[in-house]
């Protein structure tokens, strides 16, 4: 135990003195993520509000053929402006990106309306361009509303109740709570937490085997009257400490940065107070051991520091994969998911952020199974550390 602590202490001191690795482990990983996150969310919120409130300047070809429609659009905060010459020019302009959407009103529009044949208008847009699609959707909705209006006047003229045109009234009931809506967006947080934790321990994990070997300090170390288990456990413990520090920094950074995100405007109030931060830390702690052991394990197979770095960047992605898959498929938490490290932590965190009751069984399975896997991996590391081939 004393030896293990000596190793642990030395590794901690050594790593703290290495400014460059320290800054990448404890600054880049945990701080960069939330800051980037806050920036992106702010930007997207601003943009979505901007487009809903501002006046849309819609290029309309043949305004003179439909003055009523143009004034209707104006009432919907859409101003018709002069557009390209003709449809062909409009398509070119949209393709080139000069305009996002162009409305074409043919000369026979008025006649067709009067003759009660469906009057044709063209809406030119690029549906693959999601950004431009927002404006196109606004224009489309305005046109539908105009159509509804005309249809209404026509049936009224025939003495029919316009309600006949609306046989079904769809009333959507949204049961999501403001916290629940946040979860979709903030589910990404666990990705950053896992990433930050792994980043925090990466350098030490490499140093334990590949780094010591490359520096030539491994052989003198192994010739000391200590068991190799004591060495590797001490080193993994130090790796865990730095991962925990990095995770704590990441959690705090998120806590702070959420205050700068105007999430209420999106109808979200994430449940991410100090109590949730602490609970998240507790839930993620068992994962630290898994991460530390996994990185040490992978690094022990590599020949050099550089090679280890390359491989570990792959390992950084591995634990985030289940999170990604579950997020994409929007799967609900299930008991069997709780056996998977990183995934179980993610799902529990999402529940907490949603302010939903936490399933005690899920927590118990997550903690024990993650710890169990961590212990197994650590044991495998120790076995590998006893190999002769360790010296390379």
């Amino acid at each position, binding site marked *: 135990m004393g*030896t293990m602590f*000596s*190793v642990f202490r*030395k590794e901690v*001191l*050594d790593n703290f*003195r*290495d400014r460059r690795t320290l800054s990448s482990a404890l600054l880049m990983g945990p701080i960069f993520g939330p800051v980037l996150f806050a920036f992106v969310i702010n930007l997207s919120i601003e943009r979505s509000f901007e487009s809903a409130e501002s006046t849309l300047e819609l290029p309309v070809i043949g305004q003179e053929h439909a003055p009523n429609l143009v004034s209707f659009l104006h009432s919907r905060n859409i101003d018709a402006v002069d557009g390209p010459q003709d449809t062909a020019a409009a398509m070119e302009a949209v393709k080139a990106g000069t305009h996002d959407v162009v409305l074409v009103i043919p000369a026979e529009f008025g006649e067709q309306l009067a003759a009660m044949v469906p009057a044709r208008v063209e809406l030119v847009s690029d549906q693959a361009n999601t950004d431009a699609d927002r404006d196109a959707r606004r224009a489309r909705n305005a046109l539908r509303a105009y159509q509804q209006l005309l249809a209404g006047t026509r049936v009224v003229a025939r003495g029919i109740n316009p309600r006949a045109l609306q046989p079904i009234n769809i009333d959507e009931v949204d049961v999501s709570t403001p916290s629940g809506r946040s979860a979709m967006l903030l589910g990404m947080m666990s990705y950053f937490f896992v990433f930050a934790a792994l980043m925090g321990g990466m350098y030490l994990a490499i140093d334990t085997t590949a780094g010591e070997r490359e*520096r*030539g*300090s491994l*052989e*003198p*170390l*192994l*010739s*000391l*009257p*200590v*068991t190799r288990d004591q060495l590797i456990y001490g080193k993994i413990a130090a790796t865990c400490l730095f991962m925990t520090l990095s995770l704590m920094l990441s959690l705090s950074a998120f806590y702070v940065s959420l205050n700068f995100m105007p999430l209420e405007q999106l109808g979200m109030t994430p449940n991410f107070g100090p109590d949730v931060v602490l609970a998240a830390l507790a839930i993620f702690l068992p994962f630290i051991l898994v991460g530390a052991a996994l990185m040490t394990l992978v690094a022990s197979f590599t020949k050099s520091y550089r090679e280890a770095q390359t491989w570990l960047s792959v390992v950084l992605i591995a634990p985030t994969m289940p999170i990604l898959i579950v997020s994409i498929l929007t799967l609900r938490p299930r008991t069997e998911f709780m056996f998977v490290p990183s995934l179980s932590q993610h799902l529990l965190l999402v529940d907490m952020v949603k302010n939903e009751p936490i399933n005690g069984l899920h927590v118990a399975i997550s903690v024990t199974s993650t710890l169990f896997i961590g212990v197994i991996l650590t044991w495998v590391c120790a076995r590998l550390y006893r190999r*002769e081939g360790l*010296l390379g």
Partner: protein
Amino acid sequence: MITVDGIHKSFGKVHAVRGVSFNAPDGKITGLLGPNGAGKSTTLRVLYTVLKPDEGRATIDGADVVTQSLAARKRIGALPHGAGLYPHLTARENIAYFARLCGVDKAEIDDRVEQIVKLLEIDAFAERRTKGFSQGQRTKVSLARSLVHNPQNIILDEPSNGLDVMATRSLRELILKLKDDGRCVLFSSHVMQEVAALCDDICIIAHGKVAIDDSIDGIRERTGCDDIEDAFVNAIHRVEAD
């Protein structure tokens, strides 16, 4: 006291050590001499227990290097070839770290480190981080590190590599001092003059085998060569003839 009895070691197809035997008694300096790639380092690595022999056995003060490796390591101070330091720790911290791992009593660590720093004349750079140390400074610190727990047996793999004249000289004085203390010193080298000047016994290794194992005079006698360099070449040729 180190005994080596018929050890073999292969790495894949390379049979690096093929039945090396010799004794390194206390109070004497034993030199392991041989050309590059002769199997010197492999033999020493078996002795400080980072490699396991395929065959044969070796003991350190009676402790078997395979079955009682921890006990064997307690009796050894080893300086592996090209030993590296921790660049972010000072020289003193590097030495103290090894002292702690070797189980030197907490209260004594500072004193022990101070003694060894004085003995090896490290004072001038003891408080500096070892990043950017010269080869001589690095060797001194590595050596201090491996001697800090007062080991009875000292194994040095090519300790004079990359050292200048002054550093080699102080290394030689240190080795002699250790011998006078009654320690068992075993070191490897490919420089004959160095071995001839220091060693009581010389074990010449070539192609993984012991070519000759005797005192300097004994070697001169058995090879019929007065010049130690000629004797060395002569002994190696004999192995090659086998």
